């Protein structure tokens, strides 16, 4: 079933259709939320809220872009909102890296990696809009530039420009050097 048909079925009250939509998209939505937030529990909450918001807003889905991209934008906003709310609290969670597969590093490397990941998340979260949204959609939600353009309603050239400036700001914040 393609996206418009799926959405129409959900709007018509087909709960199974919504279940299929959730099953299909939960992975990508959760991934975006986790990459922004860095904590499994927070990402779970943000994912849940993303789908609640999407459920309410489905009638506004125009069908000109993919449903995944539409959801990714909602998830991005929701995750960033959650991230901005919790900045004052420090977490004692140690589960952030526990559920990432394929990791067999020594503790020191793992700590360094975790610190670096935290620095990247913080730097992205502190970017001003509209750069932040474009960077997250591009690298965390893994959308193409065309998909970002449709999802945000901005011209492709504008999206490129925003991404370029966002990366330039990130370079300053992260101290990343040009690729050798």
């Amino acid at each position: 079933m393609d996206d418009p048909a799926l959405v129409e079925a959900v709007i018509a009250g087909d709960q199974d259709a919504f279940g299929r939509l959730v099953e299909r998209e939960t992975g990508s939505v959760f991934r975006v939320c986790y990459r922004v937030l860095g904590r499994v529990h927070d990402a779970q909450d943000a994912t849940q809220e993303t789908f609640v918001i999407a459920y309410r807003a489905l009638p506004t889905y125009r069908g000109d872009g993919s449903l995944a991209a539409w959801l990714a934008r909602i998830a991005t906003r929701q995750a960033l909102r959650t991230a901005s709310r919790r900045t004052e609290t420090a977490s004692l969670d140690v589960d952030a890296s526990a559920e990432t597969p394929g990791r067999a590093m020594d503790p020191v490397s793992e700590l360094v990696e975790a610190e670096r990941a935290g620095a990247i998340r913080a730097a992205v979260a502190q970017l001003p809009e509209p750069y932040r949204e474009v960077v997250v959609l591009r690298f965390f939600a893994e959308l193409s530039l065309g998909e970002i353009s449709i999802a945000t309603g901005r011209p492709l050239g504008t999206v490129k420009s925003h991404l370029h400036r966002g990366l330039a700001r990130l370079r300053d914040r992260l101290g990343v050097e040009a690729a050798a």
Partner: protein
Amino acid sequence: MSGTGRPVSGRDVGGDLDVALVGVSAELERYADSATPHVPDGLVERILDAVASEPMYSPVGRLLAAMAPAGWPGLPPALAGLFRAVVGRPRPIRTAMRIEAAALLVVLACVVTGAGGLAVLAVRGMAAGPGPVTASPPGLVQATPPLASQPVVMPAPTNMPDASPMPAPTPARPSAAVPTVTARPSVERNGKPAPVQPPPVAPSPRPSASAPPAASPDGSGEPVDGGSDPIPSAEMSAGSSPSR
């Protein structure tokens, strides 16, 4: 998707990426590839439950949430704003209990404190439906008629016995329905020879005195909002006032 540690990939700016930014792009990709956990078990079911049981609140939360569109009529604006902030939109299940506990505490605090009466009346009014909300103020409105009616009758006759040349004025005035005339005459006439003149002058200082019986919901004689709308309760039930 990627994850091979390559310096540049399809996720960069379509080939237009400034060389100086390639490092940042690669760094972000590395991070994204490493931060790719499995979807936790039960998450899909939890999402479906959350959507199905929207608005995800207990009876207390549902009642407060149901009142949200009406702006919690009868509640002081600040309190209504607090309620809206607490239950105005769905929350993750994990934090719902905390939020509801907070909402319940607010309700209890509201009931215990002096302003609690209005909150209770508003809750009752909402539970009964949108119409009866106007029933909450009546207890207060009842106090207004006696207060408003008193000045109309009295002082004028008592202070006027000396004005014998004019026996008719008193019966003639009631039609003007100017209660406040009575307060000033005693002061002004002491030095004035012409007792008949004051009446037309006096009404202006307190023109509002004729309106209060219907307009003042709190019995003070002054409209609460400072406006002249005689139907405050109707506005409150519409929920437009707590817009701030």
